[in-house]
């Protein structure tokens, strides 16, 4: 049970270009996002020799966890490593390095978590560009939670074995959410816990393939196979093959097959929250 004056653990995976934003914007915002003290556990995905972070805010202490790798690691691998090293309890919060926490937002995430029996993940709302996915207005249940800003229960996270590191980037949050649902834990959306996250919308470019554009399609094929077996794989391949950019599609399919090789799908368990409506469409649109 979380005491009112307990220190809460926040995890953030950053790159060398994120240091200034984290120190001058994110850390000060965390101080007003909760009345509790914060330990910000951070690690640089780039690996050894990365710049360290410093906090000048009394209520936010930074714990620079030392990476041991020399090539960049993925989102899931870094967060799993942080979790193993810091053992947060009873929950921890994930926040992306380019976010700005809004006043009382973290306290609102915690309240929803503690008020909901068997809550596994509580996702905050992103501003200015909201993920327009469905959620139940009464229970706040939602099919999946974005890893950019969410609270995760430590027990279900440990039971589930953490993030699936095969994804590297993108869709590992959907995967975790679905495994929580299948394990009897709920995934919630809390609109009263906003975070500023400048991503998407007008800033997508058509002249370049972004990491999101590549990995999310590759990982869509993998997640379809992992949760829906050969049937899911077949459907995913059909959808991706039909997309406009044939050259990209062909290479993504090769990469996805390589990712799938040597893995087995989970035993299929139908669940209303575990669903695919299209390429990376895992929800109805709100």
């Amino acid at each position: 049970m979380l005491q009112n004056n307990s220190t809460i653990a926040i995890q953030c995976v950053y790159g060398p270009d994120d240091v200034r934003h984290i120190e001058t914007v994110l850390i000060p915002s965390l101080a007003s996002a909760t009345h509790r003290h914060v330990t910000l556990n951070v690690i640089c995905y780039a690996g050894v020799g990365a710049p360290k972070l410093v906090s000048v805010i009394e209520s936010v202490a930074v714990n620079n966890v030392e990476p041991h790798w020399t090539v960049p690691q993925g989102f899931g691998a870094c967060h799993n490593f942080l979790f193993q090293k810091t053992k947060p309890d009873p929950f921890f919060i994930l926040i992306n390095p380019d976010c700005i926490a809004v006043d009382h937002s973290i306290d609102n995430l915690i309240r929803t978590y503690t008020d909901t029996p068997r809550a596994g993940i509580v996702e905050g709302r992103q501003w200015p560009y909201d993920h327009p996915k469905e959620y139940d207005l009464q229970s706040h249940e939602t099919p999946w939670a974005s890893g950019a800003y969410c609270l995760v229960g430590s027990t279900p996270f440990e039971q589930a074995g953490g993030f699936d590191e095969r994804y590297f980037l993108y869709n590992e949050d959907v995967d975790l959410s679905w495994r929580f649902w299948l394990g009897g834990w709920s995934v919630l959306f809390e609109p009263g816990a906003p975070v500023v996250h400048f991503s998407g919308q007008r800033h997508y470019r058509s002249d370049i393939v972004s990491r999101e554009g590549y990995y999310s399609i590759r990982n869509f094929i993998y997640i379809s196979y992992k949760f829906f077996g050969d049937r899911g794989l077949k459907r995913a391949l059909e959808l991706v093959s039909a997309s406009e950019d044939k050259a990209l599609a062909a290479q993504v399919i090769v990469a996805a097959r390589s990712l799938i090789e040597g893995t087995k799908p989970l035993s299929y368990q139908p669940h209303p929250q575990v669903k695919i409506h299209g390429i990376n469409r895992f929800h109805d649109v709100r």
Partner: protein
Amino acid sequence: MKIHVPARSKAAALVFQKRHPHMDVEFHFETQSLFSLLSTIIHSNADYAIVCHDDVFLPVGFVSSAVALVERLNRTWPNWGLCGNAGILPFLVGGAATRTIRYVADPHGGINYQGTTFPAITIDGNTMLLNLRAMRSRGVTMPQLPGFQLYDAFLAVATISAGLAVLVAPELACYHSSSGSQIDFDRVRSDRVFGEAFGKVVANLSLPTLNGDVRVPFEAEGYFSKIDIYERSLAVACVGRPLPSVAILIRTQFKRKELLRRALQTATAFAAASAHVEVEIWVVTDSTEAAPSFVAQHAKILECPVTATGDNRALLLLAAIEAISSDYFWVLDDDDWLFPNSANIVGSIVNIASDRSIVFVGVSQFDEAAAEATPYDKPNKEIRYFPPTVWCTALNGINSIPINGQIISRTLLQYVDRELFARIVYFEDFALQLFAITQPRCNVYVLDQLCGGISIRRDGQSITAKDRTIWERSMAELAATFAQRNEMPGLFASAARAGALDRDGAGGVGRSLSSSESRLIKLYRTQKRVTQKIIDRFRRL
């Protein structure tokens, strides 16, 4: 400085020599590949060289201009590697908001700009100045490809990839009597070999050149270690140049504290993400109320007591510009905010801009139904994007760029008429633009990316006020002032024509909407919003 000319024949060489007596020219005959020739020239012992076509006509004094250009580039663009007289830029410039700069006359047309050096993505090979010493030290390498097409684009990409700047400069201006062979170019650009060669270096799926775009096939292996040619061409051009200062001025009376906090946080985020500039954030106020405690975490405070009664926003702006010594000014109102996504590009453009410049960036209005106390309370909705590419319509009397879409150099702001600012309340943003763009040697740079947000709420804002008296009085003063000035009268008339007719694929200026068209679009948008709300309500039932 030696001029290298790959000559098609002895006869062509003789013609060139006759046109250009007294120039130190080395002719290269029976060249099968300009890629190989450039490779040979790069690995020669010389520090600098000019390479040009055998059908260019260089003006008298060209070589001494080129020597002076080398000295100027070494001083002001110390990281330069390659320079041409025509090229494609990583941003837009001028009234037509074009990416293409031509300091060359040829059968396609004449020059389209004056007096300014720009960083480029690719250049035309008709006349090129090479910094051979820098190229050798950075290991600039040409691929082993045949023929006489795309060698200039490859040289530019190789130079940028090696960390050196590619520039377009007016000192290399000349006449090129050939219009080139579009058929040959089209054949080569659709050849997969060339596309794949580019694809080893650049992540971009399309590489723009003056003859057309080259499609670059996507290759997953090592993709994310390849360069984005737009960002990289700007970044390398900034190396070694002094850092200009940019003052972000946030106007406030401390009546909207949470909105002010958002403005400050996002401005700080923008500053953190910026490159190649020094950003300072200022809160500028005429209020006697004490600033909230959070202000000092983000900004310096400038108190400008203004003695005039009523709305002092215009005079406040002027007072701030006079009090703060910064190279550039970027004004936000306290209910605006910034998007830091393109901060590094904005900073790079400001860095390479000439000293009398204005940079226009994209901003959007967002419908924010929330009360002012909680700016993040509900999701907001983008309702209107102001493309900076239409800035020229200001010369048609259309205020198309909001105040937070303009970054103006101090050297242009010194021409602001203080008496006008004492008479107007609104349209001070429009006045700033007009004073800036009507100055001789004003350079306009355009970045068509979303950099700012404007909050539209139900009430409490001047922009939504039903009584337009103050607006109309301000416009009367503005129109009278500018009609009676006589700086660039021809500019207004030519802008009206450009606004009506011009649109090129690189981002030209479109036609402005008439007031009845604007009203129809507004009505359509309102009906669409209402219909969507009804549909959403049914969904929730």
